């Protein structure tokens, strides 16, 4: 049986999902300047230039009310409006095959993300169309991690199947770590009558300077620094000609090192690795979309000494169906499950060892939701989650005891959550 660190005693759940980190603070002035400069600095090409610049954005506000456990702030029997997502992006097609793009994101989640604008992605994309069938390209800068079906646009409510993405594969606690990273991505694409095949390979450094990510990997409040070592993410995806079938195989290989704070820290220095393989599939008809993803992950702590070192294999998957039963309406149902330790899926061994309740070692979500697109740029959505287990409660609450679930004693096994969202985009 896998030995879990005793430091987990205070943390509800050994939940760890996916890969990347924090958001570097970025001043709003710089953002505005960047956006304004894009068209203005090149106004000598006036019309040409404006034709090649696009600005898009989105804004979403969610409300959660839950029983048992808090989500994104104090939500138990209390409407909680602490989840807000705002984003604006610009892209400039400088040459037919050279593009620059940047997105600034501001996010509140009732915990450590307090709406400070950060660079979500900022990249230079150069590609060559070898002919109409083959394309090669490279992206450099802060780029989206090629991971699963929804990671590419996970903050845009319009592109999600529900208010919250399936937490098993897209855990909120490691959102920043997973979404984008700094480095180089090369891609190759084949377009044929049988469909589109796309290979993306990323190498670089994950964003780990973020409280949620640190908590998710270390299971406790830490005072040292978590640095990313060179990490790799890749995805091979297939899309049928008419986009009805989408398949993807993603692989994640990340390693990090933790340096303890020499003056005050309970967590010893050590190395952490998180590797995962994700299988994704989606089938679309005019009215239906069926989606499923499966992830098997390897999570290791080493060089920290007993009892901090461990090796875990985790498993996550979900099945989801969406039905567009009328123009502008969509109904969704999903089952979502996560087991951080495949050797102890019911958590009984964890509980027997005195580290915490069994239910912190799994999470099973039954979700149903309804979406209504009032206009192409305005959407509302309601959804209900029935949950067994706490392995996927995001750490935001634990990091902020006033608003969250500060320890195991404040969590419950069976809980439910109702959510409402309104979203705009342009």
């Amino acid at each position, binding site marked *: 049986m896998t030995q879990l660190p005793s430091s987990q005693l205070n943390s509800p759940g050994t939940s760890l999902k996916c890969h990347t980190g924090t958001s570097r603070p970025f001043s709003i002035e710089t953002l505005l300047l960047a956006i304004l400069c894009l068209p203005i600095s090149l106004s000598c090409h006036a019309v040409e230039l404006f034709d090649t610049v*696009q600005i898009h954005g989105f804004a979403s506000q969610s409300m959660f009310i839950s029983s048992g456990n808090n989500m994104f702030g104090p939500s138990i029997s209390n409407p909680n409006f602490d989840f807000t997502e705002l*984003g604006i992006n610009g892209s400039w097609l400088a040459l037919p*095959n050279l593009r620059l793009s940047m997105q600034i994101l501001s996010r509140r989640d009732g915990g450590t993300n307090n709406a400070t604008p950060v660079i979500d992605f900022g990249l230079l994309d150069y590609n060559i169309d070898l002919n*109409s069938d083959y394309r090669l390209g490279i992206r450099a800068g802060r780029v989206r991690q090629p991971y699963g079906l929804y990671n590419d646009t996970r903050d845009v409510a319009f592109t999600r199947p529900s208010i919250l993405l399936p937490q098993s594969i897209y855990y909120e606690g490691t959102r920043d770590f997973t979404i984008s990273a700094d480095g180089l991505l090369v891609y190759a694409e084949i377009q044929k*009558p049988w469909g589109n095949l796309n290979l993306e390979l990323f190498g670089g450094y994950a964003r780990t300077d973020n409280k949620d990510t640190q908590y998710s990997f270390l299971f406790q409040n830490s005072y040292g620094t978590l640095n990313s070592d060179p990490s790799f993410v890749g995805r091979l995806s297939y899309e049928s000609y008419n986009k009805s079938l989408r398949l993807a195989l993603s692989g994640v290989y990340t390693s990090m090192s933790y340096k303890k704070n020499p003056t005050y820290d309970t967590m010893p220095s050590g190395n952490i690795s998180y590797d995962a393989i994700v299988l994704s599939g989606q089938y*679309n008809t005019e009215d239906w979309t069926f989606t499923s993803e499966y992830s098997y992950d390897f999570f290791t702590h080493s060089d920290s000494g007993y009892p901090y070192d461990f090796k875990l294999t985790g498993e996550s998957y979900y099945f989801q169906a969406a039905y567009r039963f009328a123009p502008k*309406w969509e109904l969704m149902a999903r089952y979502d499950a996560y087991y951080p330790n495949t050797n102890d899926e019911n958590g009984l061994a964890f509980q027997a060892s005195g580290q915490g309740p069994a239910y912190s070692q799994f999470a099973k979500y039954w979700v149903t939701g309804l979406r209504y697109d009032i206009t192409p740029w305005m959407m509302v959505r309601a959804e209900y989650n029935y949950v*067994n287990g706490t392995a996927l409660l995001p750490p935001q609450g634990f990091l902020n005891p006033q608003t969250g679930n500060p320890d195991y004693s404040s969590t419950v096994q069976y809980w439910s959550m109702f959510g409402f969202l309104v979203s705009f985009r342009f």
Partner: protein
Amino acid sequence: MSVSIEQKSSKPPRYCNGRLMAACCFCIVLLFSNTPTLAEEVVVAIKRGTPNTKPVSRYVLSAIFGMRLTTWPDGSAIRVFVLPDDNLVHATFCKQVLQIFPHQLRNAWDRLVYSGTGQAPEVLSSELEIRTHIASTPGAIGYLTKENLDDSVAILPVE
């Protein structure tokens, strides 16, 4: 004599809430119907004199309107013009010519735009605007119903 102990389950009823809700919603759906299309033919229009454009395969056209193929064979930029998602001509073009559902195309554009990996096509409000833009923009491509075609644009045949 045996003493029977009534055992109360400590677990709440597990999935009934979700199931009941789903069942109700699935019944409601039978009351609605889905998106119509035009009977009229929609053709692909390009700017007159666009270089090296032979009849185009459906999958290449799908790559162009999916905003993945962004240059013509001579390396010049392709400029894509479309009508809004809920426009009947757009829906007809997607289904009949591209054989893709409009919401699928929108998803593909969203993935490009909000991940920094591409741009969306330019959305115009009428066929007249589409025709004017195609006629005046180098590298332009769009679609028109046959009745709105004229000599200011060229037809791109689809294989």
